[in-house]
């Protein structure tokens, strides 16, 4: 099984050389964020396009106002706070390699993001208007649901990284034999964590921007 490291690196016959292995999640992460950016662009484009057209004055028909700004701000603060906690935690991990100090930070970040999702669900079920109440209502619901689902993905990825840190604490690496780094050919925790930092930072910015656009423009 995977928990028993194979010493294949020493003989030079590994699948990916270790220095390439650590770059895979980072490059893949940046590309995924690029794809995600293009997934989110249409929602912002739809906002400004439909607002500018305001067909038959149905962008915000009478009676449609942005829902509770207080709840919306709470959603944003919880999500951005979760991302910030993760940033501090992964910084410690990458700079000092202290896995035990990272684990509680990972859990805290997860709790904050889950809370953000929960508050947003409450917000979406008490909007004061329905999804069929014009252009603004459509974009509000669509964009909120899209970034909330992505916050769910963030929680899963946080779970994976935090659990991996716990696993590494319980299974300290075998000492390298001949100066070659540990050769077990699984993605190193540091690489996973750094890649998640890219996605988390991006998503935090998206939530912040959505909050500004949906509640104040």
């Amino acid at each position, binding site marked *: *099984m*995977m*928990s028993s490291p194979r010493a294949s690196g020493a003989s*030079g*016959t*590994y*699948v*990916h*050389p270790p*220095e*390439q*292995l650590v*770059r*895979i999640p980072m*490059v*893949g992460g940046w*590309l*995924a964020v*690029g*794809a*995600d950016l*293009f*997934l*989110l*662009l*249409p929602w912002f*484009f*739809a906002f400004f*396009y*439909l607002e500018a*057209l*305001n*067909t*038959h004055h*149905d*962008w915000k028909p009478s009676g449609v106002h942005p829902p509770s700004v207080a709840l919306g701000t709470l959603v944003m603060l919880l999500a951005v706070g979760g991302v910030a906690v993760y940033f501090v935690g992964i910084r410690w991990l990458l700079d000092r390699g202290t896995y035990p100090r990272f684990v509680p930070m990972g859990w805290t970040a997860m709790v904050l993001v889950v809370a953000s999702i929960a508050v947003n669900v409450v917000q979406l079920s008490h909007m004061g208007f329905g*999804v*069929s109440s*014009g*252009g*603004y*209502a*459509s*974009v509000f*619901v*669509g964009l909120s649901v*899209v970034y909330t689902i992505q916050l769910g993905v963030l929680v*899963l990825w946080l*779970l*994976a990284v*935090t*659990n*991996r*840190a*716990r*696993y590494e604490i319980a299974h300290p690496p075998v000492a390298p034999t001949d100066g070659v780094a540990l050769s*077990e*050919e*699984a*993605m190193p925790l540091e690489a996973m964590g750094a890649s998640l930092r890219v996605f988390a930072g991006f998503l935090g910015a998206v939530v912040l921007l959505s909050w500004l656009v949906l509640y104040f423009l």
Partner: protein
Amino acid sequence: MSQTALLGSGPSSRGLSLRRVLLTQNLLTASVVGTILGLCAYWLGAHLDTTDNGDAGILLGYVVGSASFLLALGFGNDLLRYLRGRPVAVEVKSTGTQSWTRYFGISLDHKVVGVQFGVGVIFMFLVAGFQAMMIRTELLRPKPYLWPAGQYTALVGLHGLMMMFVATLVIVGPFGNYFVPVMIGAKRMAFPRLEALAFWLVPLAAIVLYSSIFQGSGGGFPTGWTGYANLADEARAGMDGYIVAFCFIGTAAVIAGINLLTTIFVLRAPGMSWSRLPIFAWAMVAVEFLSALAPPVLASTLIMVGMDRAVHSSFFLPSNGGSPYLYQEMFWFFGHPEVYIFAIPAFGIALEMLPVFARKPLFGYKIGVAGMVGLAMLSWFVWNHHIFTSGIAPGLRPFFMTATEFISIPTGIVFLNMLGTLWRAKISYRVPMLFVLAFFFNFLIGGLTGVFLSDVPLDTTLHGTFFVVGHFHYTIVGGEIFAMYAATYYWFPKITGKMLNERIGQIHFWTAFVFFNTTFMPFFALGFLGMPRRVPTYFPSLQGLNIFISINAYLFGLSNLIFIGNIIYSWAFVSERAPANPWNSRSLEWQLPTPIPPDNFERIPTIIAGPYEYGNPTALPVADFGASPAVAPSV
């Protein structure tokens, strides 16, 4: 549980006993689970939403059914390991089984996935091609006689969208996955599990798309492949299949894009500098940026259509604060890069093969790379040429017309590469080369008619006519599909160990080349004469031309059967093994034994020379396969 069982390739070495088949993760159990859970979700959704077509139920059924199919096939296993914090290996060593069953499950070998893609996409090509024959049969008469107008439109839409799926993946899927890692000296793709997922989304998309035939009265969708709102908002239930299937193919394209790019960026062997990268791999770099970034725009657009249909939001309904123009802008912002997702891999194939058969270095390698990258970048700035006649602000037209005409510059560069490489060359007219030369001929016509259409006054006249249909068939069929033929003849010996029969190949080539042109050249005339697309009724005076086209279309269809026949005959009925490097190519994949070992290279090679040094007696071999320092290349 053993790793093989975890990965869903369970029932292989120990025979296919019924009990093993029913209790492991395999295609059969996954199909059963997917169907049952999909129907449950459909039933649930239909009960939650009883207002109209029951779109919520249909959409939910497709998504839940497909997701549970993928999970039951085994895609959740390693995901669960990740979530539990367990290290997941880059690659589980092959257990030595070479059983045929590995083609029916999740495989982490990029060569198996390449073959899966090849067989799957060619099957889809045949289905959609058969529909083309149905279309041509209907058009034998100027009035509907086989299918009423609504069904004819659905038929054209299904043919069009299925062919879009084929064109998106027909080169990247089989040849990109199979050969890019080998060409750059890597043992694996960067993300082998995602690679397998990209493939398995394809049959799901095909099934979902064709299930739309059974939705609603009449079946199918009325919009053609472009799915314009707000017709799509109002269409019957078949539209839901369009939305979900297109999203699946888009997802597959994004995943393939991220995977191939990461592979090429990170996993090049030592010495494989950017200036030694095979031009086909460069084409993959250029195209996969489009493939990673454009389909997400489509996905969001289609989610909006789905919301409009299922929960009555109004992104595209002008009566309620939406706008159908919004759809057109976003669809074509995806749609134009999408057509370069078809074209650029074909350029890569053509430029990769020219030097091999001309026995000369590739002329202008660097400007060829610049041409393909430039083409990819320009493709983001031209999308409004599709909606010149939709009522966009007239002031926007000159910009998009000019931007579109600029595209002929990078395209022209690729033609210069071709002319320079062929100049004073001793050309070997083997079948792959014939198809490459035909590619340039066909694409020239496709490209030039594109310049016509970019011109606003001409487009105002020709929009929505058969001229447009002729244009994009020349680029996609005459261009990309001909490049696919070339690639198949070229790489078949490395994949299967058998040469495709040269004589049958020559027959295939000449029938394909002649009947393709006699089929589609008259489309331009039909367009000038005002025959509209997607309509089964036309002026009776055009019947003679249409009959001529239909006969030639049948013959072109027959030519494709010759191609398939050649594949089956050469693969299954010829016992003679192909030599390891029948074309005397310098490229890395041809330096390996056939079949390529599961790990590609025992040791990662060191690249010491470029791949196109033909006719240079002092050129070094392309790679040193001995003990290698295995240092990461500098980016």
